[in-house]
């Protein structure tokens, strides 16, 4: 089921939390709404669920507008951050609740609950109460409650954020697998860019109620539309240097750095921000016109890599990711270089990428 949002606006009193959101979630895709807290992603999800009124705009499931439909009539299922299991009911009754409310015959409920419990490997927990389950088990029950009704659309509101780091990694893979088995459209809300990158077919990056970019994980990573997306996606985060563009070169302090082609159009002495990921920087033996010189102020071992912080002139810092075997010491003077094809250039005023047309 395709979900289309057209010019969606949401206001809480005088606060505008969503501004003209236009998104199309293609049928059977796993789409993530990604953004920092307060960006409006959960509100948008709740509006799709019918739990929140729409101030303006239209939500359509397939061809049908659902603006006025109650949640129960939308054939959706939702997994909540706190799982929201009914504490007085056994796992079995929690799983079957949605079917029971809809008057499904008892035998069919048993059958559906059994099927979902087997898929999620929670059939041995059916007679327990939620309080007797671990976090991961509760998560599975919440997932099962959503799956049992065979919904057209799956809504998930940060379902992994209450799990410990290791379990989160396992569940990421499982959620992705369930999505592929279920044949439903999944809309997933998270502030964790790693979750978004690993699980999604498409990511909508949101900030201050506005969709900043909508694309595949590879697109938002390698072609960020603006400074916000560039800074939010990727770990460790991208380095930004303020400067000006003159005659095809980026001027920062004394350095004149090479740039890629900029179809975005450049004025003389154009104020711009250069963005480059720590992975795309290398150390050079000798200084040159296209290198930046600085002093190493911090070295962090990440395992197979080291993250090196370099103090440049003008109080700017840059992080450089290098192989763990490379020997560097704090206080070393180093020269940093990058491939011009791997940098991002943004207009200082609008924040928009100058690499896009």
């Amino acid at each position, binding site marked *: 089921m395709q979900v289309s949002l057209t010019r969606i606006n949401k206001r809480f009193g005088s606060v505008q939390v969503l501004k003209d959101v236009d998104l199309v979630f293609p049928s059977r895709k796993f789409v993530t709404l990604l953004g920092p807290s307060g960006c409006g992603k959960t509100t948008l999800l709740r509006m799709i669920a019918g*739990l929140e009124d729409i101030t303006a705009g239209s939500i359509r499931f397939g061809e049908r507008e659902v603006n006025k439909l*109650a949640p*129960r009539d939308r054939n959706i299922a*939702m997994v909540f951050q*706190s799982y929201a299991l*009914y504490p007085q009911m056994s796992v079995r009754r929690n799983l079957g609740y*949605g079917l029971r*409310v809809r008057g499904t015959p008892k035998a069919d409920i048993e059958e559906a609950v059994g099927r979902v419990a087997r898929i999620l490997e929670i059939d041995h927990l059916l007679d327990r109460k939620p*309080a007797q389950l671990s976090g991961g088990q509760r998560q599975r029950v919440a997932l099962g*409650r959503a799956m049992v009704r065979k919904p057209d659309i799956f809504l998930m509101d940060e379902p992994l954020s209450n799990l410990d780091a290791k379990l989160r990694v396992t569940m990421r893979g499982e959620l992705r697998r369930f999505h592929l088995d279920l044949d439903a459209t999944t809309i997933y809300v998270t502030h964790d860019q790693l979750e978004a990158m690993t699980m999604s077919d498409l990511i909508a990056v949101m900030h201050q109620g506005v969709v900043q970019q909508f694309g595949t994980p590879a697109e938002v990573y390698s072609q960020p539309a603006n400074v916000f997306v560039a800074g939010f996606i990727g770990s460790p985060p991208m380095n930004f240097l303020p400067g000006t563009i003159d005659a095809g070169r980026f001027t920062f302090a004394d350095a004149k750095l090479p740039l890629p082609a900029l179809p975005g159009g450049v004025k003389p002495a154009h104020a711009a921000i250069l963005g480059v990921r720590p992975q795309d920087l290398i150390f050079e033996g000798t200084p040159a016109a296209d290198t930046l010189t600085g002093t190493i102020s911090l070295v962090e071992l990440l395992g197979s890599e080291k993250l090196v912080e370099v103090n440049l002139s003008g109080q700017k810092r840059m992080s450089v990711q290098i192989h763990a075997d490379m020997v560097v010491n704090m206080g070393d003077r180093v020269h940093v270089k990058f491939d011009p094809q791997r940098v991002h250039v943004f207009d200082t005023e609008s924040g928009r990428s100058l690499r896009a047309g």
Partner: protein
Amino acid sequence: MSRLNFLSSDRFVGLVFIAPFVVTALVFMVYPIAEAVRMSFFSYNPLRPDLTSFVGLANFEFVFSDPLFWDSFRQATIWTLLSIVFQTVFGVSIALLLHRALFGMAFFRGLLLFPYIVPTVVIALIWRWIFNPEIGVVNHFLLWVGLINEPVYWLSTPTMAMASTIMLNVWKYTPFVVICVLARLQTVPLELYDAAKVDGAGVIRRFLDVTLPQLREVLIVVIVFRTIWTFNKFEEIYLLTKGGPGTSTFNLAVYSFEQSMANLRVGVGAAAGVVMMIMLLVGSIVYLRIAGFGSEEK
């Protein structure tokens, strides 16, 4: 351990902190209860203390063979049961209403405490005026609306007197139920309601499957407390009807008071008090067991 060490230890500080309560409890609770139990085995007339004598279980025998005691017990049960039912139903309903974020609710929440904070004596006097057959506002209003054709003798017929005392009790203590329930309602996770909505539950099912189970524990506690306090209640009945007309609104507290103070048979009054205490103790334990209080994990 040296003396100085003990004085600065956590143990000593802890003892100092609980001491005021322990002393108060001993003086005002344990001693009177013990004294009442002792008294229940003696024949004691405050005007002739020289005739005080140990009578064994004679006071209890008297109490159990006294028809008035059993009438009082029956009336106390009716009065308690009806008071609690109405208080709970009204309390939960009002709490659900006040829980909604409607305009002016803060004002009503404040107003709600009014019956609870006004002294019972004042309330009883006001209610005696309100229920007065000739000049009371209740009759005046009902006659004016046309619901009744002649004045109702609210406090002068047994049934009406019982109904009036129940009404007073319900009016005064419903706010207690409202406050407890409201406090609990505010802690019910909103995501549970959202989950129920997505699952397809309507308003009634959401109340039955989300709200009510969450209120279970608080209602169990409230009902126990209200039952104990209502069964024991003395001043409301005494101030409103003095147990009358006749003995039709006697409960065990009034019975005990009348035996001790009017009939000067303090031993019998004490025995009635002891019986009442045991009844409440056993009743409460059985009720909490049946309700399964505390047995369920959160």
